[in-house]
Structures are given as C-alpha cells and as structure tokens.
C-alpha cells in the first residue's frame, strides 16, 4: 500500500490538529503521531520583528518537498506524512510550517519528522525576509542547519 502523503504550499494558516486527525482517522495500525509546528517568533537576535515574508520557488518547492517525503517513506516505516509550508507575510505568533508523521512505533515517526524539518530548512527553495523597525533584511542561512541536514546523509535507516 502506498503511504498517504499530503504536501501543500499555501498563504493561509493551517490547523495542525485537523491535519493529524486526517492521518489517523479510521486506522488502528498507527501507534505514534509526531507533529512539528514551526512558528514565527517575535524577535531575532534580541530585536523585535514586525513580520517575516517568505518567498518561494513555485513548482520547485513542491517537487523538492515531494522528493524528501518520498525519501522519508523509503527510509522509515511511516504510515502517513503531511507537510504544509506557508509563504507570504507571516506575523509573530503565526504558524509557518507543519510536519506530521505517523507510524506503528515512535522511533520512525520521530526520525522522519526530524529528517523532513532538517531538509526543509536547507533544501526547500524558501527564503525568509525579516521586517524590523521598518527595514527588511534577508535571513542568512545557518551553518547549524546545514550540519543538521548533513547528519542524515549516508545514514542507514534505523
């Protein structure tokens, strides 16, 4: 059976609980659900921010996320995956990204969710611009995110 997967890019916010419920409804083979929600914080480097604006590469973003969801399904015995990534202007406290993974056991659900988040941070074509005191600046990529993504390379499925 193919693993049910949902990948959506959208301006609107999302309902994490409803998305998790869609993956578990009517099934009794799922023993573990991991939900990761990324939220727009109200400050960056100690300074308050007004908003984030996320630009993305339409088409490529969907394809890149799809490739990584397929890789997660191949590496771990997950029973369902949902990834939703917002673009456009996002205010502090609003959700940015959602990853939900389900599995019979917790290890696979945790690993797949972390893997997907690490890759979304470094490989999915999204760029964050931060508005602070009237000025807009592009957020620089973090080396720690590259290191987090690199730890999955060449690592056998657990």
């Amino acid at each position, binding site marked *: 059976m193919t693993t049910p997967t949902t990948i959506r890019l959208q301006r609107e916010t999302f309902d994490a609980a409803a998305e998790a419920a869609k993956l578990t409804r009517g099934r009794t083979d799922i023993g573990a659900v991991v939900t990761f929600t990324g939220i727009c914080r109200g400050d960056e480097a100690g300074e308050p921010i007004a908003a984030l604006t996320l630009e993305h590469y339409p088409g*490529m973003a969907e394809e*890149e996320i799809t490739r990584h969801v397929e890789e997660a399904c191949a590496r771990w015995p997950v029973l369902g995956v949902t990834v939703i990534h917002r673009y456009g202007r996002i205010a502090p406290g609003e959700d940015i990204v959602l990853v939900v993974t389900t599995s019979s056991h917790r290890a696979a659900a945790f690993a797949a969710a972390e893997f997907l988040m690490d890759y*979304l941070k470094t490989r999915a*074509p999204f*760029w964050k611009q931060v508005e602070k005191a009237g000025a807009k600046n592009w*957020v*620089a*990529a973090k080396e720690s995110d590259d290191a987090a993504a690199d730890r999955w390379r060449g690592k056998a499925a657990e």
Partner: protein
Amino acid sequence: MKIRYFAWVRERVGKPEEEIELPAGIATVGELMDWLAGRGEEYAYAFENRKVIRAAIDRTHVRPDAPIRAAREIAFFPPMTGG
C-alpha cells in the same frame, strides 16, 4: 532559455525572470554566472559573491559544474532559509 532569480539575487538583478539567448561557449552553470555578471552593474552586484549563490536547473538543485545545454529553466538564489 528562461533564467529566474529569487530573494536578494532577484532584488539585485531587479527582475524575477528573463529570457536569454545563450552565447556559444557557455557550457556550465558557473560559466553562465560569469557571463551574467558581465552584463551590467546590477548583475555584477547580484553575482559578486558567486560562492554563496545556489542554482537549480529545471527545478533541481545543481552544482556550478552542471552542464546547461539541455536546460529549459535555470534559477539562481541565495542559500535556502525555509522551515
């Protein structure tokens, strides 16, 4: 060939995309960046630090030595900051 720019590469070049006629002798992504950088001040600024610029051919990440002959769409952008 369609060239697309994102984030600050787009801002510096001053446009989100353009059609170019690829000159003879430009075989790789890296060579295309060199050629684009020579097209004017805004391009020179966008491509001044070529090491940090990432590229995709037909929506797939590629390295600077990737051949571009068969490409329909090539995109240039800074390191990604999604998630």
